[in-house]
Every structure is written in structure tokens, then in C-alpha cells.
């Protein structure tokens, strides 16, 4: 079980970090999430969540390369830790288990 409670937004970001691998940094995650979710995502909210996840120890960061479209500023590249990965996995499993308990017929009736 996770020792720290994760909100769904943070869980989503944790997943994104895992998905994006070498390209996981603030702006990229924000843009990617906007495309996935189809709604506006606030950059500062993403940053705050990333910092918190790093504090808990689910992700770690290093300072990476600079590109032209960021005005020469370096990126902070995040990568998921083993702890993060296991939390993500256990949460996903828990959810699937619970999902299985939902009576499928009821859905059709209503």
C-alpha cells in the first residue's frame, strides 16, 4: 500500500513521467496531458505536483539539456523510481479489482 496518499492529478502525472521517459519535464508533460485529457492544464499545478512527487520519492530529477524553443534554459528531466513504479502498479491493480466487482448488467439496465 502507498505510504503517501496520491491525488488523481498526481497519479496522472506520475504515469506521464513513466510514459515520457527521457522527455519528462514540466512543459512537455503539460502539453502532453492537455492533448490526452482534452482540457487546459496549469503549468504551475504540474510543477507543484512534480515537486511533491519528488519529495515523497516516487520520481527523481536531473538537470538536462537546453533547447532553442525554451530560450536556452535547461530542463529538469524527471524519471520514475522503483517505489513510484510499484505504487503506480499497485494502484492500477487495486482499481481493476474493484472495477471487476461492478455488476456489468446493472449498467445496461440503467
Amino acid at each position: 500500500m502507498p505510504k503517501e496518499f496520491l491525488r488523481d492529478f498526481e497519479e496522472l502525472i506520475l504515469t506521464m513521467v513513466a510514459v515520457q521517459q527521457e522527455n519528462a519535464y514540466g512543459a512537455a508533460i503539460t502539453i502532453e496531458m492537455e492533448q490526452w485529457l482534452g482540457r487546459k492544464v496549469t503549468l504551475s499545478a504540474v510543477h507543484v505536483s512534480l515537486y511533491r512527487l519528488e519529495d515523497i520519492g516516487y520520481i527523481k530529477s536531473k538537470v538536462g539539456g537546453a533547447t532553442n524553443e525554451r530560450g536556452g534554459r535547461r530542463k529538469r528531466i524527471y524519471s520514475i523510481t522503483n517505489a513510484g513504479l510499484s505504487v503506480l502498479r499497485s494502484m492500477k491493480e487495486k482499481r481493476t479489482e474493484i472495477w471487476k466487482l461492478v455488476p456489468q448488467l446493472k449498467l445496461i439496465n440503467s
Partner: protein
Amino acid sequence: MKSLPGWSERLLRAICPDELYEQIEGDLIEIYNYEVKTVGKRKAKLRFVLACFRFLRPGIFLRNKFSLKINSIDMVFSYFKIAYRHLMNSKAFALINVTGLAVGITAFFLIIQYVSFEMSYDRFYTNSENIYRIGLELYKKSELQTSSSKNFGGLKELISENFPEVDAVTGFYKTPANTGVFFRHNGKIYNELGGKLNTDSTFFKVFSGMLVKGDAATALSERHCIVVSESMAKKIFGDEEPMGQHIQSPNDAGDESERVITGVFKDFPPNSHIHANFVVPLEPFMKDGNEWRQAFLHTYISLKEGNNPEAVSNRLNQFYRKMAVKYPEMKETKSFLQPLTSIHLSSQMQDELEVNGNKNLVYIASAIALIILIIAWINYINLETARFALRAREVSVRRVIGSGKSDLALQFLIEYFCVLVLAIALATLLMAFIIPRFSYLTGIPIDSIQWSQPSIWLIAFAVLVVGSILVGIYPAIFLLRLNPVTALKGKFGNTSGGRTIRKSLIVVQFSASLILTACVLVMHSQLDFMQSVDKKFDLDNVVTLRNPTAYSSEEVIEKHTAYRTLENKLMESASVQMVSSSSAIPGTEIGFTYVNLLKRNINDPYDPTRFKTLFADYNYIPFYGLKLLAGRNFDPPRPVQKWIDPWDDENWLTLILNETAIRALGFNSPEEAVDKIVEFENFEDHFQKHKIIGVVEDYHHEAVKKEISPMILSPNYGSFQQVYYSIRINPTSSREQAVDDIRKSWTAAFPDKPFEYSFLYDYYDQQFKSERYTKRIFSVFSGIAVFIGCLGIFGITLFDVSARQREISIRKVLGASVASLIGLLSRDNVRLIVLSAIVATPLIYFVAQKWLSSYPMRIVVSPMFFVIPLAILLLLVAFVSSFQTIKAASTNPIDHLKNE
């Protein structure tokens, strides 16, 4: 975009932790560039701004490490400790600083209290901003003759018919506050002062929010209606419901008529220029919509939102021009709109409802408040900078260790803050003590702090805060200019620059003290002069009574009988020498003031000179010792058996004029005027031939402060216009005895009327009330200014003397006498005072001239006004500094030299 705009960079740097800043900046730029491509430049920019501000969240700025701040909090505690030690080290200086600031702050806030009261007039109506009074200007050959606060009786109707932009218009006629209103309720007789307004039902529409009970539209619709103030309702009816109660008051027909209370209004607060306890409907004769001859109604309008008052008055004057064809009186008149809120401070016209305030006085008071505060601040700066020699080492060590300029500034600010907090605590105590006595000092009827004008208080606090910060930082800036290395080597001392600044600040203090003292002196002399000026009449030992039936409608014969009884009774008593009756007594304004009242020929053109008519008996001239320059007094009255109208008796068609009046009529000498026949309008539109039988010397009837107006004395035989009785008491009999005799006579004549009397001397003296208050305020506050200044000088001398103690000792060893040493030590101060005198003299002259120019009778600005304040200041400074100089000069030099 390659980098962030300046503001956002500053914002983000301020809120983001340093180690995260670069990545946040990069992400923002990247997203912006991405969005420019996807959603367009304008939208991207907007989103960028929003995104920047979104970083203002606890999740971001709480990530900043606080270690640095904790460190500086420790330092702040240390600063407090140092400040405490610093204060304790030099208790004398601390005391001087705290006292000076406390007194300064107290004075500042007291004056602000006065200023805010004066500026808060007439702002309590719900629509104060839209109310205007329509004033009337009278021109003669296109030159402004007089402006009056009353306007024509027909104006109301003209406006309500032709001006859709005017929400409501009202006009009222005010019976002065000192004229009693007679009525009866439940068999009790009342004679209530406080003023009565005759007005129409729109009154409570213009002055909205005043009516507490009753309906504004109908409260004054019937003749028998009366609306009373809350306090009056309480007085008459106690806890009973006042609405619908009946009172009986005398009417024109001679008997009593019922009036019904149809409304209750809020008491007018002290900061209102209108005061009244009763509001009744207009009398029928006041309602004439075609009344364009006499201006007798105070007319107020409330404009609908968004209308320009200029436009209204322009249009109004076009009407006036058109109507002047029909009414020649209107030919050279103009109307203008006065904002209600500006009346108290800016309007000084004829027939003002009350004595208005003075804008200049308010400005001057604010200036004094600021000056006192500045003097107190200067004290602090001077004392602090003077002692720098002692602190230079401390500051140098701090700087060498690595304290930054802002740290030092903070340290000095905290020291100042400690002094300020102590001073404010002391000031609060002082205020608590003074506020209850405040109304005596300023004449303002308040006994607790009023926050009625938040904007003024805001400015006052802003001044205090900004000034305090500047004053607190100044010593730090001063010290930072020192080179720490040389200062540590011991080569410091008073830099010449610092001394110059200090000296110029002292000159400012001295000049301010000189100017304030001189102002007090000028006021005092002018007041003395006005009180002692030859008023050309005799007002000692005179008791005056008001005829309670003067304007009531009792039978004239009865009124006459009552007067005869009173006079006979009075003359029987030994303490009374003489009795006279008249329509006004010296010190009261003469009510019968009209233009176009007196002509040499019935066909003479309209003349805007305002003549004042005083109705007096044949005793009046000898009673007041007026000098007849030519001609004779009125004839003695013959016994009245039955009432005859004055104009039907030839004896009554006589006039006595004063010098100004005959000049206004164009006579060259009093002799020339005597026995001439003139046309006198003894009632409206009715000119009748009158004979000038005498000319009296001009005398100051209304007030010494005012110009003497053209005056007509007309006989008041019978009971006609006997409003005041003047009684000259025997100077040898005691006042108590005289008053008692008068009371007995009064009871015989008016058994059911309350007895009220006043001594004319005191009554006439009332006109100087505002001058006296001004003088008192000025004396107190200039006293405070001088006191704070002296405190500063005391401190500076204390410091100077101790700093120069060694020099003095050496001089003494070398043979200098005590006297020469005292001279040496005082020389600086004397030089500064002389310099201040040079600065202050032209200012004093200017201020004195300006103030005196408002009085028709005034003193000349004499050299005394410059010399006496200078002498006072010299003496005070000498006194204050003498303690230390004498002590320093007379100590044994060995005591100070052996320590070397």
C-alpha cells in the same frame, strides 16, 4: 520569445526558489512558443500572463528555504536589544526625543481633529454631493456690489417649471435661533430657541434622509402642519408618540391656532450649516411665484445625477435677463450655484444662516500641524546626528564585519521605531487627557475622537508613516557616508556637511517658532485693538431684555400697556437710570435691511445700496450716548389710547440717518441733509415722504469687525417694533440688586413669560468669539512648537557642551573667564537665531498683512511684531542652554583634563 518580460521575471524570482527558477522560466517560454503556434499570439500572451500569476501558490513559494530569514529575525531582535541599550545609555536624550515626539504627535492629531470637523460639514445627507444653494449677486454698473445667500421668492417656481434636470427645489425662510418660538401644549407655555424654518414640502426631498417620522410629500402640505426635531419632540412630549399631537400657537388674527405635528426630523448635527428645531409651511405671502423684488428665501436644489451646475446657472441667468424687462430690480442680478458641502468653508455672503468657518484658517491649522511635527522630527534628527561621533565606531565595526547598508538602515529604523512607540504611548495618554477639554479650546462641540473624514485621517497617517520612515533612515544614510576604516582609526568627528544640515534645520525650527509667536502677537494686538476701539456708543452697565410679545399677535394696545408697565416699574427702582426700546440692540444684526429703500426722489433709479433700518424710541440716542451731528432727536411719544398705523401720524414720518447713509444719498454735510424730505418705503412698494430730522455720528452697531452700513433710525412709537429693551443701571448699585429689580418689573409686566436677560457688554463681546478661539488655538500650538524647539536646543547644547568639555577646560587653564566661555558657547545659538530672524521677518510681514486685510478696522504692522518674538526666543534659548553652559564653564578644568 527568448526570455521573460521584466515584470514577470521579477515576480517569478521573488516567489520561486532559486534552484527551480531556471526550469520554470524555460517551461514558461517553451509553452508560450508552443501556444503561439497552436492558438495564436494574442491568446498565448494572455495565457502566459495567467500562467505566471498561477505560480503565486503556496506549493511554490513555501519551497523557499527560510534559513536566511530566520537569521535576520535574530538580527532584528539584536537590533531591539541595541536600541534599548542605546536609549538607556543616554536617558536624557531619550527623554527629550520621546517627549518632543509625543507632544508633536498629540498636537498634530488634535489639529487634524479640528480640520476634519471643519471639512465634514453638510456631508450627512444621502445626496449631499448633488445639493446646491442658489446665491444671488447684485451688480452696480457691472461691478459686484454684494452677494447674498438669499434669493428671490419666485425662483422656486421658475426652477420647478423650467428645469427638468433639477430633482427638487426648496426655499425657506429662517427665523434666527435666538428668537423663541411660542406655543402651548397641555397648558404649558413653551418659548423654544433653536430656529424655525418656513418652507415647503420639498424641503425633505432636497435634504433627503432627514425625516424620521412622517411623509415628506405631505408633512408640510397644510397650514397647520408643524414638523419638529427629535430632541424637541422628546422635550415636549417625553416618551409619548409625537405624531398627531396638537400644539397651540399664536397666529396673525390675534388668537391661537392649532398646529398638528406631522413629522419628526433628525436633529441637525453640529457640523451642519442649517440648524432648526421647527419646520413649518411657508406663509401665504412668501409663496408668491411672481416675487422678483425681494430676495428673502434661501433656495436649495438637488440636481439629478450627471448634470453640470454651470449649465444650470447659465440657463437661470438667461431667464433673469428676460425677466429684467418686467422687473427692473433684476436688471443687474446674477444667480450662481454653490455646492452644499463648500458652504461652510468658502461662503462669506450676506444673510448667511450661521457664522461660517474659514478655509484659510483650516489650511493654516493644517500647516501648523505639519510644522509642529516637522519641528519634532528635526529634534530627533539633530540629536541623533549630533551623537554620531559616539556611534561612528560601532557602525564601522558593523560594516567591517559585513553588515549591509540596508541592515544598518533597518537598525536605525528600529531605534527610531522604539522611540516612536514610546512617544505614541505618551501621546495617547496626553490625548486621553486633552480630548475632553478640546471643545473649550477650539469651540468644536466634540468630546471624543471623531473619524468622520476618513480621507483626512488617511492623509494624516500617511504623513506620519512616510515622515517617520524618512526621519528614521536619515541618520543611517548619514553614517554610511563615513569611511569605516578612517572611522575605526578614530578620525571621525562632526563632518562639516552634517553640521551645516543640522544648523539649517535649527534655523527652520527657530523661524517657525518666530512666525507662530508673531502670529499670536498680531492676533492679540488686533483683538485688543478691536475691543478697545471707540465704538462711539456707551455699552457699560446696560442690561437688555427681549420683548417676548414682539412678533406675537396680541392686541397692540395690550402690548403697549405691558411695555408701559415695564418701563414705569423699572423707572421706580433706584438701580435703573434709563430705559429704551428698539428693534435691535448693538451686537444684533439689524433685520430690516433692504435695497432701494430710501430715495431722494420717487423717480430716482433703482439703487442697490443696502440700508439698514433700526426702529428706536426717543430715548435711544441719549441712552447709548450717540452724537447728533446736526438736527434733533425724535419727539417724545404721546400717550397711545388706540392703535393708529405709524404712517397715518405725521409725527412718525421722521427719520434720523447716520453719516454713511447721508453720504449714500449724496448729501455733502449733515447740516445739508437736515430737514430734507426723502422717500422711504415703509412697507412693500409703498414710498412715503419722510423728513430727515437729524444726523447721528457713525457708530459700530452690528460689529467692530464689519463696515458701518448706511443706517436709518425710525421712531417706534406705540408698540411698533419694540423688540429689545435696553436698561441702563445705576453704576453705583450692585449688579445683583439691579437684576433683581428688573426681574420684579418683568414679572409685573409679563407675568407668564420666562425672564431672560443679558448684559450688553458681554453680548456685544460675542462677535470676537471666533477671533478669541483662533488666538487661543494659535497660542497653544505655537507654545507647543516653541516648547518642542526648546527641547531640541536643550539637547543640542547638552551634547555640544559635553563634546567641547576638554576644549573649555584648556581655555580655562589658559585664563579664559567664565563669562567669555559662556559667550563662546552661546555664540552659535545667537548666530542661528539672528539668521532665523532674517528668514522669518518677510514671512511674518506677509502673513500679518494677509490676515489683517480682512478687517475694515485694523492695526498697522509694527516692528514690535518682529522684535518681541525675537526677544522671547532669545530669552528662552538663553534660559534653556544656560544650565549646561554655566555648569561647563564653571567646573574645575582638572576634572576633565586628568583623564587624558
